[in-house]
């Protein structure tokens, strides 16, 4: 308690780093499944959920809003899975459809809400750009709990997850409950994304899932170390970005993190290509 009051930025920093850890972990899975834009889709799909949660409960408590976002985020993922099985459309087209339509519905609801006498502009800004600087101690507990849960689940099913992603049919013939594991992975991803929205906001969520995974892929040859690298890069990017935004007072945290992460990824790409070329 005392620590938090002495160093006002310690809590947000820890929070952001935990989010970095989680997005680095699940971003790697998304990268390997070639579904990296899922982060962007889910992030946009949470808007109607957040607004509806607000409309129903009239409260701006973060857990309430996040639950609403979680529900619509999961609906979005389920809808994409359903449509990809029963229509001829490509995955990225489905992503585009779900992303924009859910967001459009969210907009309609939002403009509906804005007519109500309660100020909702703050809600919107939080959603769009994240509010890392206002993370509090209780948020930290939630993040810590989430990190533990996610880490335990991933460690338990580690080999099964890799198998399912690498060769789905073969995994089925081994008797692995493929559908269940895919659902578990989706639920974890959506939960992490909804939580991460809090730090960096909607638009920048896809970057946190993509950039660390891209960086990690260049640095290693095995999946296991790729995960560790991705988590480390993500944590570093989040910490650096947060520090930049603390030092330069007007720079928003989310934007700073994304810039650091992307520059890191791009730099690694170029560096590794040069090194490979030199060899």
């Amino acid at each position: 308690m005392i620590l938090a009051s002495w160093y006002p930025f310690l809590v947000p920093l820890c929070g952001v780093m935990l989010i970095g850890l989680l997005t680095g972990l699940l971003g790697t899975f998304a990268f390997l499944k070639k579904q990296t834009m899922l982060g962007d889709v889910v992030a946009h799909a949470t808007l109607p959920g957040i607004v509806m949660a607000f409309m129903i409960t009239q409260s701006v408590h973060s857990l309430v809003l996040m639950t609403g976002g979680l529900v619509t985020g999961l609906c979005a993922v389920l809808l994409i899975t359903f449509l990809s099985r029963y229509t001829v459309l490509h995955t990225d087209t489905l992503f585009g459809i779900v992303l924009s339509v859910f967001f459009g519905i969210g907009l309609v609801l939002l403009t509906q809400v804005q007519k109500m006498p309660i100020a909702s502009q703050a809600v919107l800004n939080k959603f769009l750009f994240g509010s890392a600087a206002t993370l509090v101690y209780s948020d930290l507990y939630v993040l810590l709990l989430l990190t533990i849960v996610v880490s335990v689940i991933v460690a338990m099913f580690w080999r099964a997850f890799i198998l399912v992603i690498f060769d789905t049919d073969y995994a089925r013939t081994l008797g692995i409950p493929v559908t269940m594991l895919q659902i578990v992975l989706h639920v974890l991803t959506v939960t992490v994304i909804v939580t991460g929205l809090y730090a960096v906001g909607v638009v920048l969520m896809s970057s946190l899932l993509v950039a660390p995974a891209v960086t990690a892929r260049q640095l290693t040859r095995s999946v296991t170390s790729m995960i560790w690298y991705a988590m480390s890069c993500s944590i570093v990017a989040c910490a650096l970005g947060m520090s930049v935004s603390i030092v330069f007072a007007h720079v928003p945290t989310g934007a700073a993190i994304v810039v650091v992460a992307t520059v890191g990824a791009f730099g690694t790409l170029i560096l590794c290509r040069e090194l490979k070329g030199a060899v």
Partner: protein
Amino acid sequence: MNQLNALIVRHLTVMYGATPALDDISLTIPTGVICAIIGPNGAGKSTFLKVILGLIKPLAGTLHILGLSPADAHTLIAYVPQRMSVDWNFPISVFDVVMMGRYNGGWFFNRITAQDKDIVSDALSMVDMLSYANSLIGELSGGQQQRVFLARALAQKRTVLILDEPFNGVDATTEQLVMKVLKQLSKNGVTTFVVHHDMVAVRGYADWIIQLQTQLIQAGPANLLDSHLNPPFPYRAYCHAYAEK
């Protein structure tokens, strides 16, 4: 002498949407043989495999592998899928791919034992890929990739082996090696099903043949069916076989 037959199929009918993939197939295959499944493109060969593996549910008909239904038989079967089904840029080594075959379905922090590692090494040396154990799969040629897939199935140590087009786009060395491995397995009592599009090459290794073209053209021991397999006019032979049915 085994009491159970490796495969008993009765009235198997599968439809993809509104098109028939398999139409009223009935056959019996004994254990310990190498059985080739041949037929032109779109004949339903891969579909047939997928029903055996339990990946597709048929519209009608029953299928039993060693007396068990496909859902229960997965513990007896090792599958070698087509090479195209996988992303070869995945960051994983040859050894780790073959190790996947040792996954025993445990849910709690599935561990890799020393025995697993030995089995994997043995499987790799059977297919002559032990020296590539630490290479990334993306660095391999087509034939080498196929051998890795085969090693993965061998590591499972099952009594039924199913290969989907293993000879597609592989070099002659790999082809010979795979045929040698299959014959070895057959001596040890393993039943093998191989989908192969080359009607001539199957005579080199297959004991039994299943000839499919949505319907069953014929199924039986290779030596009894020889005369139908390499006719001077294959298309005419197909028509005859079709008409005779």
